[in-house]
């Protein structure tokens, strides 16, 4: 079992950080009822952990007996869809964006299914079930609109917990129907403490310097920090202060790509870069992460003067990429645009002499 799963807190009282919030959450479910929730925060901040703790607080240990199940749906156009759900007796967890543009059908059907089956004995159990929807920010607008009224209508029989990385993409109508819970990323100091604590449990010794470097690479993402720490252990134990902290190889790969773009701006580079991008995409790196990392790398190495221009172009291209569904076009077009701007600046500088 990975450390990140093994040492995941199971109880609201055992959470390592945001303790005030934990107390609040406990208050929230104390009398056995709560409004719909929208939990949001960056990756690896502990959103899921908090949701599971909350469910446990509500239903007891039964909420942890999970089973996986394939559910199938039929769209109005008679297309069969299958989606993986994780459920216990008390809750069901789905990621509706798995089925792409058909997410609306899934959202509607699941809520209606769950909501229509009432609990027979409402004294022994809670009178509602919980539906956990993950990655709500990736839902289509259609599906989000479908959620609005359904949420209100079936509130007697089910509660919905939404989980999102950013709520900018969640329509205001849903936000106003939920209690929004912000889960900020843990501070660097907290992560260091958790790393030390985890290593102690595993009876390992973690030097402070190494922990600090791990945290820096992890970008305040606790899960990633734990994974890196585990990877370091596999690589070399006992730990050394100056041990190599493995950066993810795709990050290094993007760095190389960026360096190539800065070196030469011509057709040749463009086709080379395209190969690199394809390789990243085929390896399953999400295009928005490629874009962001690439931009960061490029910005590090260019003049103040053109930075604003590049960021402006990046914003436009990134938006288009989110709109369309062939990300390679937009990535490549941005690459070309960047090279153009960069070259123009270089020529201007040379012209001055």
């Amino acid at each position: 079992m990975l450390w990140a799963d093994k040492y995941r807190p199971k109880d609201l009282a055992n959470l390592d950080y945001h303790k005030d919030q934990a107390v609040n959450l406990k208050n929230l479910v104390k009398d056995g009822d709560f409004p719909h929730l929208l939990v949001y925060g960056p990756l690896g901040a502990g959103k899921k952990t908090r949701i599971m703790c909350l469910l446990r607080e509500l239903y007891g240990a039964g909420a942890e007996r999970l089973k996986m199940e394939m559910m199938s749906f039929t769209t109005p156009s008679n297309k069969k869809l299958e989606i993986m759900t994780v459920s216990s007796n008390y809750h069901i967890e789905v990621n509706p964006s798995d089925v792409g543009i058909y997410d609306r059908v899934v959202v509607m059907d699941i809520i209606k299914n769950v909501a229509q089956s009432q609990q027979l004995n409402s004294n022994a159990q809670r009178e509602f079930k919980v539906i956990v929807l993950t990655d709500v920010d990736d839902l289509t607008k259609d599906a989000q609109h479908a959620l609005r009224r359904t949420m209100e209508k079936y509130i007697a029989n089910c509660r919905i917990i939404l989980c999102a990385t950013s709520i900018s993409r969640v329509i205001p109508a849903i936000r106003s129907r939920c209690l929004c819970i912000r889960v900020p990323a843990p501070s660097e100091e907290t992560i260091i403490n958790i790393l030390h604590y985890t290593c102690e449990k595993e009876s390992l010794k973690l030097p402070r310097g190494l922990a600090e470097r791990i945290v820096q690479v992890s970008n305040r993402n606790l899960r990633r920090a734990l994974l890196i720490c585990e990877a370091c252990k596999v690589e070399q134990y006992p730990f050394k202060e100056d041990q190599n902290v493995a950066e993810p190889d795709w990050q290094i790969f993007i760095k190389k790509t960026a360096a190539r773009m800065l070196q030469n701006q011509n057709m040749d580079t463009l086709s080379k870069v395209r190969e690199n991008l394809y390789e990243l995409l085929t390896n399953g790196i999400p295009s928005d992460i490629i874009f962001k990392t690439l931009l960061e790398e490029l910005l590090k190495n260019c003049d103040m003067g053109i930075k604003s221009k590049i960021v402006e172009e990046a914003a436009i291209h990134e938006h288009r990429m989110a709109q369309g569904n062939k990300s390679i076009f937009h990535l490549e077009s941005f690459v070309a645009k960047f090279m153009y701007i960069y070259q123009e600046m270089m020529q201007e500088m040379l012209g001055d002499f």
Partner: protein
Amino acid sequence: MQAFLKSGKLGESSGKSSSSKPAKKPKSVPWVEKYRPKTVSDVVEQSEAVAVLEQCITGADLPNLLFYGPPGTGKTSTILAASRQLFGDIYKERILELNASDERGIQVVRDKVKTFAQLTASGTRPDGKPCPPFKIVILDEADSMTHAAQAALRRTMEKETKTTRFCLICNYVSRIIEPLTSRCTKFRFKPLNDSMILERLQYISKEENVECDETTLNALVETSGGDMRRAITCLQSCAKLTGPGKKMDINSVLEVTGVVPQHWLQDFLKICKGLVNYNNLETFIQNLILEAYAASQILEQLNDHLVNSEEFNNMQKALIGEKLGAVSYRLQDGGSEYIQLLDLGNTIIQAYALSA
């Protein structure tokens, strides 16, 4: 006979339930539902719509209606309250409520709406009281209907005027096709007045025994932006979070409403103003996102700040305002928060450069 059987059965079952489960908890209803206006006259602000509906309740004819306005201004509440008053107990049979969560393509409009519209309605209730001889089709969130489905409604709406009235509800009237809007009486629902919301919140908090002072409530009202539902949901959430018997404080309100603390905004502007190192801006935005503050909220607050600020001249305001619009649109459309905010930061830097 029927009544006797019914009552006998009811008595029995209720007796049983009271013996087997003596302490049945009262069902908890969200306050938004609990304090929905029961009658049309309870609806606050929206005087035109209320006036028309009240006349209709006293016997006048009801036109086809189109309600539009921002969320939480009482559109759905108004029509539900009105139909309850019009039809009394049988209102469930007389209205067909469809919203975006129901399948609402052209097929449904053709089948369900049409068949419902063709049913005749009598002018009396089962208990003999008079009631208006028509049914109401409520199409909630009509702006998310496809154009084809809207077009299919046109003729149905006219043909069945004898027996059916339509009530379309939407946020943006511009998304309803022209032929439909011209068939309806339009009512704009205004964002609610701050004092109205405050009054309502005070009433609810008294009813529910929530302890909170004027400033906390005022903060709630301010963040709600004229959206009654949001204000009430926030009030309930805050009350839940703090637990019964304790006093609500302003910090928990801010946390629940997701407002970004003012110092973050000031820091943002400060960093853009005296930009020494570009990395500062990048790290700042990175931190902002790691704190999980919503970029859309930041844009909204920045906009408020900008409009009233003395620091910028009109030219600068226009420049930043334009970018705010673009960035906000892209964010809603699925752009990445980091890159979009970076773009905004750049524009602010440029704006500062104008004055220098």
